[in-house]
């Protein structure tokens, strides 16, 4: 007989945490290998192609960083919201609203102002847009006890429709021959990139700085403390006189605002115009939820988990392009890796004892 029992683990060190993650990663790769074998592809070759395509080559790494920018920004913001147990599923909409505000600002003032003025203004507008879209569910939750999972999720669709309405209607560009989409943003707004890549460095710096500042906010400020109390022990929070509305408004303004920054980065750094929601963001607002969890709700770690996840997505291209497997394989591989990483968390917090032998 085999007996399996579990007990809680309390002495969680950084080293153990790292080892668990690596172990989970390796176990995930093993399962993925079986899938590659079944598809008739050599797993070692496949995995090396994925790695080369994401971190192991200059080309792949540049793309990974490009993709990581919005994930880090949004993921860091979500760690704050999730710490306060505010389940913000609406980052995609907050990103799009940021993109809308940024586009309006760029098209209205971009011609008249130099880059040094207009770029910060556009980022400010993007933050404002994302923040406004973020505080709506905060008000609804605290004032009227409406579940934020529903409101944030639904606001995504509303924002996508508003964006679509703008680009097929009043904002449709003259240079687009009847097709939806705004004209290109003025040159002064277009963000610089690291030569030979698509890394819009202003947003990258902003992402890293935001994650770092947010870490200080969460662990070192009164507001961060209050946000954590709201999440972990709301009763104690009430007793201590924490203003739930104020705390929720601020944290959702930050979480939404960072998603808004990501929207600015995509529009001013990558696409240079506002098109359909699907051509502004490839679901970054949803992907970043996983990024925040992988970061164990620590904004600083979101920098790394954002990079790792971007690497998984970008490396996934290799599955199709180099190995010739269908696109669905990419989703399967990514899904398996995530499940194992999240399962690893269980083994980090629990000891599992397996005893062999007879039981009488």
């Amino acid at each position, binding site marked *: 007989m085999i007996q399996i029992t579990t007990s809680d683990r309390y002495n969680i060190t950084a080293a153990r945490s790292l080892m668990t993650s690596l172990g989970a990663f390796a176990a995930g790769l093993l399962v993925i290998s079986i899938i590659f*074998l079944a598809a*008739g*592809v*050599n*797993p*070692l*070759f496949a995995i090396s192609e994925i790695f080369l*395509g994401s971190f192991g*080559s200059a*080309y792949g790494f540049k*793309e990974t960083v*490009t*993709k990581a920018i919005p994930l880090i920004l949004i993921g860091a913001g979500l760690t704050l919201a999730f710490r306060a147990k505010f389940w913000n599923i609406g980052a995609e909409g907050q990103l799009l609203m940021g993109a809308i505000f940024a586009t309006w600002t760029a098209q209205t003032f971009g011609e008249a102002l130099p880059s040094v003025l207009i770029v910060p203004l556009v980022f400010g507008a993007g933050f404002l847009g994302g923040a406004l879209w973020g505080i709506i569910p905060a008000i609804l939750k605290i004032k009227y006890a409406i579940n934020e999972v529903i409101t944030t999720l639904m606001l995504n669709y509303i924002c996508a429709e508003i964006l*679509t309405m703008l680009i*097929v*209607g009043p904002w449709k560009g003259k240079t687009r*021959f*009847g*097709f*939806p989409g705004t004209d290109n943003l003025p040159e002064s707004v277009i963000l610089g990139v690291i030569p030979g890549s*698509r890394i819009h460095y202003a947003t990258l710096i902003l992402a890293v700085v935001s994650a770092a500042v947010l870490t200080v906010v969460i662990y070192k400020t009164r507001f961060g403390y209050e946000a954590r109390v709201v999440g972990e022990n709301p009763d104690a929070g009430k007793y201590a006189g924490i203003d739930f509305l104020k705390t929720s408004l601020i944290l959702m303004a930050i979480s939404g605002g960072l998603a808004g920054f990501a929207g600015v980065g*995509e529009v001013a750094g*990558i*696409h*240079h*115009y506002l*098109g*359909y929601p*699907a*051509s*502004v*963001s*490839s*679901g970054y607002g949803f992907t970043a939820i996983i990024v925040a969890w992988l970061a164990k709700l620590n904004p600083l770690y979101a920098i790394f988990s954002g990079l790792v996840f971007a690497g998984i997505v*970008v490396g996934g*291209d290799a599955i*199709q*392009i*180099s190995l*010739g497997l*269908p*696109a*669905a394989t990419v989703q399967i591989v990514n899904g398996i890796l995530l499940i194992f990483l999240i399962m690893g968390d269980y083994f980090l917090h629990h000891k599992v004892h397996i005893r062999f032998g007879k039981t009488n």
Partner: protein
Amino acid sequence: MKTKLFAVALFFTFVFSFMLISAGVPDAAAEKKLKAGFIYVGPVGDYGWSHAHDMGKKYAEEKFPWLETVIVESVAESDSMRIIDRLIQQQKCDVVFTTSFGYMDDTVKAGKKYPDNILMHCSGFKRSANVGTYFGDLYQMYYLNGLMAGALTKTNKIGYVAAFPIPELIRHINAYALGVKAANPKASVDVKWIYAWYGPDKAKEAAEALIAEGCDALAFTEDTPAVIEVGQDHSEKGKQIYTFSHYSAMQPYGEDSVVSGQYMDWGGIYATILENIYNGTWTSKNMEDKDILWLAKEKAAILGGTPTDPVNPKFVPALKAAMIDSPEFGKISAYDLVMKRYEQMKQGREVFEPFTGPIKDNKGNLKIKAGEKASIGDLMSIMYYVDGVNGNIPQ
């Protein structure tokens, strides 16, 4: 013991798979090769747009031994630049085909970035020294479908489930409506927009809504047979709904509902483009004026819901019985009129063009003067409904 066994087994599977793979690598031919990358917006199994492009790619691949291809499916429009980069930098593609309108800006940017490569963008209007455009359009087939819908309808209400309000769709809706009017001046076309290329759920809902409003003939632009399945469902239950297959051979999804359809064969287009590039006629210096548009004349646009039957045999008797007063042919059956027009279209736009004036928009303004034919440029940017379409284009 068990783990050892597993390790050994794993080792052997690795070795075995290495052997499999090395056995699969063909001997490198010494002759000149051309490598082409294809970027698809949907899965190749979507049974619509991406599927049709992939069929075209396969045709060219079989025809040319020197051609090597790589495909990437389900590429989000916001990710196209990354995929183009990878196809050119890592896969060393000489030519990249980007097959969705939303890839346009990235394709043009990639053209600047890779001046020695050739990029071909499908359905767009921006070109440069090394970026060409190509398209195969179905508006003529929609006209023929409209003739049939107009002849068969009992309610005089015709429906259209449409993806996005862009000129391509407006052109197709208009051509369909012109066909309907030519067969049946009392009938008009209602349009429902679903804002998705791939959205079987929304397409079903829109089709049901149109049927509920009284429409009994439906054409559509969406990449699945969803509308046909709705039509088949109603037809099986005794309420005949006529549908028109879109882009692939969808008739098998609705033998009792699909009258005909539009079918695109990209094979010839891809073969022509690739051959021109391979033999050096088209280079990365002279693509500025390479704007291919293939229609019925080039046998790119084909009538029918299957590759074999232009009209579902089930509906041929009804179409032969429906008589139409044609200004050109006098009293003629709907079936004969469709076939005559189809033959004319195969001869070229100069022989028959659905967009021949007088054509008014649905507000009564004259858009194309009597006797004039719309230019290709006008058709490619058309943004008004012709008389016979109800409602307004979403703004």
